[in-house]
């Protein structure tokens, strides 16, 4: 096992996993917020587009999105992010993880919006806030605070789902490295447990953190 750890860059692989997670968390939060705003906006067309996004993306396997990005968009349609294949795949992985989890972020936020009594939006409008100001000052802050628990679950799912990126990234992130080790050195339970432990170390503290935050930051009604 010592040999394997010195021959393969396990820490580096987890570092890539962490990078993918952080970048895709930010990306999915941004896209998911925009889609959620579309879904609660007063404009019917935007609401329709938002709903379509969630229904399509949530029902498409992430594996398919990953493969589609590099094979379909990048190779067939020529949408290259970088000349270098590995960098190109890295950023496509970030994009697809973001796009995919944005659908879940959107639904988490919408559940957060549903914790807000309808009167809050009316009160915001009636003091003269515009739609954008109502969102920024009144609705989104409460929606985020009401959505901390489901957002936490989404983040944990995202971290685990970064392993799907192994499909296009090969052995740079954790799951790809594990399968390469298994291929070259034969299956070894301790190695498997080591990688599993790595993921538990990443996700377990987050789960605890989000649970305590969701209680501490809950809006008292």
């Amino acid at each position, binding site marked *: 096992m010592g040999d394997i750890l010195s021959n393969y860059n396990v820490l580096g692989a987890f570092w890539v996993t962490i990078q993918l997670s952080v970048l895709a968390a930010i990306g999915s939060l941004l896209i998911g917020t925009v889609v959620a705003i579309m879904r609660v906006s007063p404009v019917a067309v935007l609401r329709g587009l938002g709903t379509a996004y969630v229904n399509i993306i949530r029902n498409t396997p992430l594996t398919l999105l990953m493969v589609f990005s590099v094979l379909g968009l990048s190779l067939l349609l020529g949408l290259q992010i970088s000349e270098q294949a590995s960098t190109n795949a890295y950023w496509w992985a970030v994009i697809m993880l973001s796009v995919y989890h944005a659908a879940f972020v959107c639904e988490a936020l919408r559940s957060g919006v549903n914790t*807000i*009594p309808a*009167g*809050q939006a*009316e*009160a*915001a*409008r*009636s*003091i*003269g*806030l*515009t739609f954008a*100001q109502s969102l920024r*000052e*009144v609705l989104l*802050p*409460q929606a985020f*605070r009401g959505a901390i628990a489901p957002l936490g679950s989404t983040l944990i799912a995202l971290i685990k789902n970064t392993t799907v990126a192994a499909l296009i990234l090969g052995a740079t992130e954790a799951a790809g490295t594990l399968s390469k080790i298994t291929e070259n050195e034969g299956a070894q339970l301790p190695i498997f447990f080591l990688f599993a432990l790595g993921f538990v170390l990443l996700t377990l503290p987050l789960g605890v953190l989000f649970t305590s935050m969701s209680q501490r930051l809950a*809006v*008292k*009604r």
Partner: protein
Amino acid sequence: MAEPLVVMQDVNKHFGDLHVLKDINLTVGKGEVVILIGPSGSGKSTLCRTINRLETFETGSISIDGKQLPEEGKALADLRADVGMVFQSFNLFAHKTILENVTLGPIKVRGVPKAEADTRARELLERVGVAHQAAKYPAQLSGGQQQRVAIARSLAMNPKVMLFDEPTSALDPEMINEVLDVMVELARSGMTMIVVTHEMGFARKAANRVVFLDGGQIVEQADPETFFTNPTSERAKDFLSKILTH
């Protein structure tokens, strides 16, 4: 009569097949206090809410201080800033402190500097009797206190007219008067007010006129004394006999 401030002309509104407002014509003068009264479902809330376009309407027109009610966008937001609204369920912003609830509008809508908005908010909270609660959150206040904060929040915008939709119906009996006292004081200070309420004591003390609504129509209007003691329409007589018995 005083200069007209709110003018509703032939306003009609439907909810699907239900004709909730039928040819409403109502003029409220500057400084006037008008009570809207009528059976449940008669359209009192809806009428109130069309005045700042929380509800749309199909035909007719509403103007406030000579300006037509805009349909949407920034112009509508600007007009709403001039029309205060106090709800039955208070609707304070639950994630903001009492002080922040009162300063949000002035800072974001009117562009008042924060320090100035804070000072003014504290004056208003003092006026409605909840100054010492400024740093708390709405959930920490009683219903009566929350409603007084909601009134201060509206007042902070220096509204031309204030709408009240059953401001005391969600309150425990012992808290009703603390809110009504603030409203009476407001009426005496010359604020133009349109108030949906069944509180006859308040109507007698503060109102210039009572407007009786039934089935989406204005059936009768009179000064409070005349309306409560000597209503002319059968429907008003019937309604009053019901609310007077309990």
